């Protein structure tokens, strides 16, 4: 099978088969991100128009089995402590499955807000790791819950602002190097909070465009290797800044497609490597933003189907490439 087109049926069956082999060591070693993986799989299916490919009720019950009653949030796996990353994934899945009534909104909001530090950043959990990724998880989750009003926006924006570097980019914490994934979380959080005025659009847009390498793929920082997942981090940030045309869409599309596994399905970080569901969602998400024919529109701010976000009245002012005809 040629990798000059997106092999949707193969990717659908790849995602369906995930989690079937519970005896595999990899399955155990990745239990700390299981709920995240379910969100990645579900969103990839949704963008490919096949959300129906996984059982809705089973998924909702799995999400609820990750609920940490003591903390008031979701853990990555039954029995795991609540964490912001898993909590966002849990909420996103319930929104996409139209099962919000299962959530104790007050408790979850309380859990999320309890993780904000005096500096404005968020910790991921009680362990104390801080990262602008967690700030984005908190802002995204509160927004989906309709509880952004509970957040100290000024303090939150203040922290993001201090993470802005001399190259226009953003890092994981104050003083940290600019990195495309951190750029995405900071820019998307600012978009949700209505504070894109804190972004130097031209400088950052240019820094993002510079991520494209001669092979068409995108990297995360200067002089690093290309990786399919940057197709999402970079493109979504560019679409929020309305500068997606600044990268070569044709070359990037070809790069993402070349990283598919034409036998078992799934997408890898680069051609020839092992596939995984993380690179599958972000490859497909990137293609959606690039206007690849036959895909569903993705909201780049929330990384969920655009229709779902619009229905909740949460759409922000972003711009993807127009969807091409088949």
């Amino acid at each position: 099978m040629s990798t000059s087109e997106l092999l949707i049926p193969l990717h659908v069956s790849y995602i369906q088969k995930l989690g079937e082999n519970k005896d595999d060591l990899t399955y155990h070693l990745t239990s700390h991100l299981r709920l995240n993986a379910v969100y990645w799989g579900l969103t990839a299916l949704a963008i490919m128009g096949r959300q129906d490919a996984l059982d809705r009720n089973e998924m909702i019950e799995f999400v609820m089995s990750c609920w940490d009653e003591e903390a008031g949030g979701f853990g990555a796996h039954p029995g795991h402590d609540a964490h912001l990353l898993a909590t966002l994934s849990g909420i996103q899945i319930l929104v996409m499955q139209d099962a919000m009534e299962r959530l104790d909104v007050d408790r979850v909001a309380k859990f999320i807000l309890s993780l904000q530090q005096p500096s404005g950043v968020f910790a991921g959990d009680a362990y104390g790791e801080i990262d602008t990724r967690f700030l984005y998880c908190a802002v995204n989750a509160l927004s989906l819950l309709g509880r952004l009003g509970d957040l100290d926006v000024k303090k939150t924006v203040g922290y993001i602002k201090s993470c802005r570097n001399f190259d226009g980019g953003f890092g994981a914490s104050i003083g940290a190097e600019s990195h495309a994934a951190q750029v995405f979380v900071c820019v998307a959080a600012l978009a949700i909070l209505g504070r894109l005025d804190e972004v130097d659009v031209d400088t950052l847009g240019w820094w993002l465009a510079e991520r494209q390498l001669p092979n068409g793929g995108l990297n995360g920082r200067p002089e690093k290797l290309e990786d399919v997942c940057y197709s999402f981090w970079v493109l979504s940030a560019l679409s929020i800044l309305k500068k997606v045309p600044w990268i070569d869409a044709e070359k990037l599309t070809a790069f993402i497609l070349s990283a598919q596994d034409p036998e078992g399905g799934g997408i890898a970080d680069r051609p020839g490597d092992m596939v995984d569901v993380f690179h599958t969602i972000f490859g497909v998400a990137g293609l959606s933003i690039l206007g690849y024919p036959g895909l569903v529109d993705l909201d780049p701010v929330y990384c969920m189907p655009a229709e779902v976000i619009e229905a909740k009245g949460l759409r922000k002012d972003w711009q993807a490439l127009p969807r091409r005809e088949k």
Partner: protein
Amino acid sequence: MSTSSSPEPHLFATDPAWADVTPIEQYEGSTAPLAPILYGAVYKDATDYLRAIVASNEKSPRVLELTEAVVRLNPSHYTAWQYRYETLLALKGSTPRLIAKEEDLMDELAIRCLKSYQVWHHRRLLVLLSVERKDGKLAEAEVERVKRELEFISRSFEEDSKNYHTWSYRQWVLSHFFGSSASSSVADNDEDEDTIESVWTKELAWTERMLEKDVRNNSAWHHRFFVVFERPGARVGEGEIRRELRYTKQSIALAPNNASAWNYLRGVLHRLSIPYASLQAFVTPYTVVSGDKPGSKDAAGGEEDEIIDPENPRPSPGAQLPCPAALEFLADVYEKEGEREGVLKAVEIWKSLANEHDTMRRRYWEHRIREGIEAISERKSA
């Protein structure tokens, strides 16, 4: 006990020292049999016992053995790390040199687990435990301990010179122990001030050595900006400005097609509000097509006997010219002149980038062209 060095892997289930503990399975009620993949069985065994220990809140020395087994198999298992730290806290009062031994173990483990955030976070917690300030001052022994930490970080860069967590951690160690704010200061008199300043001077030298190894290490350039401009107590005078500009220009001369150096240059100019035009003489030789004049000393066709100008180092022989970043810079210089003539010169350069030197980003260059022309038209009609 390392599971990888024994011929028979150690299982807690068959270890008499653990006979009093009932392991807790992850998939309670599951009837799916575990395939006989040995490595998987060892991991399952260790994590089943970890779950039991966490449930009973045991904080004994054997917990250290157990959590070490788990993190050796899975360096990202943050519950194991967290519980190990809590156990250390509970035991350190009654166990001499416990933290010191833990630090030695971490030195050994860390190289294996470099990509795991938890390893660095654990080191941070340990160094905070082992370096206790008295009266806001750091004793000499403590300064040595922190310097050892910096040396460890340097060694780990040999494995992965761009590890994001490692660079962040180094920044934290420096700022926390050698920042000049009262709460973290060694300084109590002039002598101690010297200690702090010498740490940062050495750090700049260390950063330069990293850049010597790889002038394209973006993390190292970022770190340099932090050391020179952003660290607590940074003082930037005429001397520092000249030094930074000279250093960056020399790096560009060595390897012109290096985005990090150009980003750094722009960062410095922007931070100090230095006009781009002041670098026009430096940049121009990088914008010409590689010289093919016989007897050329450098790639830009310079003369053999031309006097070397340290303020304007020329492209090294063999450099790929023209350098797109230099073209971009020169176009910005022209555009900033603000006059119609300047903008038109910039437009010509942007066209050459769109059509020839950076075609991948043609749309971006077309955007610059449009913007430039719009700006002149507006002025005409104003």
